[in-house]
């Protein structure tokens, strides 16, 4: 699959991208929301792996922007983030309205679990 990895930390991005590549995927890396839209434009992703804490425009803004393009409505998004999800008041919105299929808390997610989540991500019903 072709994965769009949106991760601002270069060193972390390297680990995640390498692990996903070893699992047989191609990976496009973006450090922020704007470059992620450009990369998605260049090659349609099969799965997006997204950190919510991004410089400039945050991951929620990216999700709303991403979902405003009809061709990207069904692309599954795996959240892989430092934000403890119980602190987000509206996690349900992320899942029901923004097509987030899996939420992973980064400090507790090994590379193996990340790869598994990506592998099992299925297209979203808009």
């Amino acid at each position, binding site marked *: 699959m072709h994965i769009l990895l949106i991760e601002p930390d270069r060193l972390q991005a390297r680990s995640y991208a390498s692990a996903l590549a070893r699992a047989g995927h191609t990976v496009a890396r973006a450090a922020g929301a*704007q470059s992620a*839209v*450009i990369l998605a*434009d260049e090659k349609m992703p099969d799965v997006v792996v997204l950190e*919510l804490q991004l410089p400039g*425009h*945050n*991951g*929620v*803004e990216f999700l*709303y*922007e991403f979902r*405003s*393009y*009809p*061709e990207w409505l069904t692309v599954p998004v795996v959240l892989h983030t430092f*934000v403890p999800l119980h602190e*987000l*008041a*509206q996690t349900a*919105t*992320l899942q029901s309205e923004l097509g987030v299929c899996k939420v992973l808390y980064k400090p507790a997610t090994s590379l193996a679990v990340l790869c598994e989540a990506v592998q099992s991500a299925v297209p979203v019903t808009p």
Partner: protein
Amino acid sequence: MNTSSQLVTDAIVLARTDYGEADRILTLLTPDQGKLRLMAKGVRRVKSKLAGSIELFSVTDITYIKGRRDIGTLISARLQTHYGRIVQDLDRTMLGYDLIKQLHRATEDEPEPEYFHLLQQAFAALDDPTIGLDLIKLWFGAQLLRLYGHTPNLQTEPDGTKLVAGQTYEFSFDDSAFVSRPDGAYGADAIKFLRVVFSGTAPQTLAKISGVANLTTEASRLVSFMQRQYIHW
């Protein structure tokens, strides 16, 4: 280009949709020209002069020309006020999108100027980290009800008896008024707070009320129920 056909106004982005390879259609709320649907050409290209100037959570000065059907063309945009702190917090971002969606759905094509100012005030409140999200949500819901003509009766019971301190009340949704009950959930403080909220007092002022967190929780139940009842989306 014939500049006399160009129109200028302030605008807030309500929605953006895709159109072709390079263009976007923006739905904008204005104070004097209702809702506009404008084509923003080439905005998907990073080098477009418009890219970056049509930000969400902003008030933008726009120049546009009317189209033959209901979609005009955006000529230029200049960011006037950007409420940049909203996007520093994920919950504020999500509430911001939610309020925009609520307002977009609650208004038709020719909304009064009050709706523009309501959304602008909401952005200003979201931009202020000292104002709690629950309060902003409550305040916004109450203003939408007010603009829709659904302000509840906060002065008297349905039979005209004035509401008094020391008495407790339950809210009757059928009568849209408070009815005295011995163990009613609403007392004087809660009702006074609702009066202030529905009066259009700015969230910045409401946030300074003592005990605002508890008062907000009590009032929110009532207001969100009323929204579900009276504002059909």
